[in-house]
């Protein structure tokens, strides 16, 4: 049987020790071992972006990452985006702009956009489109997602 490895992932600020087979995907580890089902799996081949999480602050496809390869690293999932005062500016902007419908792709977008705005707090229209162009959404047509990114940038600016 596949050998198991004991790893520690720092997920949303909490160290989580878990035994995993070498072949276990990070997405499955988060969802099924750690119970963080907010990270979704849409294609398992790295195209749709539903499984995007932040690895040391940068967006990665958790369905293309083996859990053992990120031993000791910091991971932020959608469950870790909200602060003590409630939803993050990015999350609030998505609600305000109707940037989600079925919500399945949303956690991936939220992680992607959170990282995008950290890197570029005031993106242009082009930069927003480019920034979200690695995530698929089948419901919204993206228009309200792009709008929400700009709105989130405004909220972040107001609150900083």
């Amino acid at each position, binding site marked *: *049987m596949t050998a198991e490895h004991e790893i520690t992932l720092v997920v949303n600020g909490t160290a989580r020790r878990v035994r995993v*087979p070498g*072949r*276990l995907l990070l997405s499955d580890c988060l*969802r*099924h071992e750690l*119970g*963080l*089902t*907010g*990270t*979704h*799996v*849409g*294609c*398992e*081949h790295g*195209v*749709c972006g*539903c499984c995007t999480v932040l690895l040391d602050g940068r967006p990665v496809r958790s369905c293309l990452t083996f859990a053992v390869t990120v031993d000791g690293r910091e991971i932020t*999932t*959608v*469950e870790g*985006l*909200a602060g003590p005062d409630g*939803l993050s500016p990015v*999350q609030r902007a*998505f*609600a*305000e702009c*109707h940037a*989600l*419908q*079925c*919500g*399945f*792709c*949303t*956690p991936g977008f*939220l992680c992607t956009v959170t990282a995008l705005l950290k890197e570029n707090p005031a993106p242009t229209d082009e930069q927003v*489109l*480019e920034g*979200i*162009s*690695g*995530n*698929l*959404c*089948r*419901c*919204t*047509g*993206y*228009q*309200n*997602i*792009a709008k929400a990114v700009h709105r989130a940038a405004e909220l972040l600016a107001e609150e900083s």
Partner: protein
Amino acid sequence: MTTRLFGEPVQRREDPRLLAGLGRYLDDLGSGALAAAFVRSPHAHARIRDIDVTAALDVDGLVAIYTWEDLPERVGRPLPLLIPHPALTHGRTAYPLARDVVRHVGEPVVMVVATDRYLAEDACALIEVDYEPLKPVVGLEEAAHGAALVHEDVPGNVGAHLVQEVPSTTGRGAAEAIEAAPHTLAFRLDIERSASMPLEGRGVYARWDGTDLRVYSSTQTSTSVRMAIAAALGLPLPHVEVIAPDVGGGFGVKIVHPWPEEVLVPWAAMLLGREIKWTEDRREHFISSAHERGQVQHVRVGFDDDGRVLGLDVSILHDHGAYTPYGIIVPIVTSTQLLGPYRIGAYRVEFTAVYTNTVQVTPYRGAGRPQGVFCMERTMDKIARHLGKDRTEVREVNFIRPDEFPYDQGMIFQDGRPLIYDSGDYPRMLRMVKELIGWDDFRPEPGRGIGIGCYVEGTGVGPYEGGHVQITSDGRVHVSTGLTSQGQGHETVFAQIAATELGVPIERISVVTGDTRRFGYAVGTFASRAAVMSGNAIALACAKVREKALRIAAGALEADPADLTISEGLVHVVGAPSASIPLSTVAVLANPLRYAFDEETARATQFSGAAATDRPPVVEGEEPGLEGRDYYSPIRSTFAAGMHAAIVETDPLTAEIKVVRYAVVHDCGRLINPMIVEGQIHGGVAQGIGGALYERMVYDADGQLLNASFMDFLMPYATEVPHIETGHLETPSPLNPLGIKGAGEAGVIPVSAVIASAIEDAEGIEIDRMPISPSELFDLRG
């Protein structure tokens, strides 16, 4: 704060949990359940000679392996043909697990249950199935040729054949009318396959406790899945509950039921006495769910000097894939909705639905309409081109006029009822969309063109939906309806309706959909019907509750019910808000309890009140509790409409196609929530752009789906979808109390027609197929 929320852009009530990662989708449930996986056919057409599971038996964590031979008689029967039709003379459905013959790549052959999905797939990989390959039938014309057969007992591969003919007002048939017309055109159109492709695939999770079966399914119809499971497993209906949890998109594919897995997973859960879950992966979704759209159409049209259509004859070859579980709804919709907003002189439409060794065809958003609209709108453009007229002018002369409603198209619609349009204003809509896009000021130039497309969509098909509304003694309002949600915002729009009808703040209202524990009778979410059907049913149920609340409050306030109203959750005398009673107290009074478990109920025990002793505590004709249930069952569908226009640019060298502007004018009657309607339109247009320019299912001659991944099946990203400008027209439906029409599928319907129209304008080349890629356009340039 107001409770009159109908028509307001209320923010969605489902968002906080979905944004926090607290949604509960199918695969988020059942932690610890056993996992199912399937061995699926690698051949498009083959006979199964032998299945050898020996090697798989050594896999650690293996629990069970099932083939068709292991299924009891009842479970092993062919899956139901859900919507029979007299024209579907040779309907065929699959067995839950293949019996002897497989008819498309992806057909399930063996089911494996193991302690986790990785191990279940390990076991699947070790199962050896010996196949004798048979000749596959791939492609519409090959199927129609009938040299090889998909089903041995279906001659010519023809599952269904239907002719519908509507003569002109003078009694002329279409052929005669075309013959006699001053101008005639004949042409062929090709429409390729696409698919719903929700980002969450299908999935089933079943629990059996020895008496009761609870099944969660990522479905568009939990009530019907429940009945199908009870029937297949021989269980009494009250012992089966089916719940659609949060569902990550449907777009049609999840209306089909029962899927093989919806029968097999509960059956195995009962047999093993263990919880079992199956979550579809993306490749499985491509090769074993359902596709749509594929048609070849041959069109003949006759028209006069003004472009008025005198006769139209359309012959459709429809690709049904390997099976017809959902009947022939799609080609029927194409045939009938093809007519769009037009009054056509004489119309004849004929379709032949053929089997091929490919994934079965069932409705995908639009459900046959995009094909029909492509046909009619290409026809309008060709007429305009032939006569040298403006394309909008030709449409205008053919429109049904606003004073002609209700307008009878003389056909039978997909619900088996007359195709009668209830209301609309097409000339005004055309003016609006022309203004929005700037049609009259547009100056075409090489590589830059403008296009238009019009459609009518029958929405809100019956037979019925229901609503239940309960006000509890804490003042909360609990609304439920049986149909399901896949992102349409039902929790919000139905709460808006209840808030408006009851006069209760929306914060106190919760809505549950798709849970048979809460509401057992429903049809499902499809055909842009949820808002029309359940919206009206909930409004009617609210009216019952309201009536009862006013009656009880009238007794308490010693007032006439006619003088009472409800606002902010308080029943009070109109114009005298001081004389009031909260709905929470009315709810207490409505339930003459014997037990006082809290202060509110203490006030209601039959010993505490001043109830009359000369009549029973619950008087005849009354029921305890402040609740109401009602159903809405329409006489026929209500017809929404829309017109889209676009400007495209084509690259002179690479033939790349760029949509520069996209304008939509849409009429879905009264809007419950304009923000949500607009969102539905955006999403529909984006899927339409996919269908017009990118998405197709590429089968090779052996029946292998070559692009069964998101790497190769090109769904639009944000960079491919244009900015969408929208305008709304509201012509209320006279058919239902709220005056609404459906909006869910609308956006996708005319997009291929619009884009083809615009490319044709830019290039001067006739565009007769969808989708069209840059390389195809390049080739067309010659």
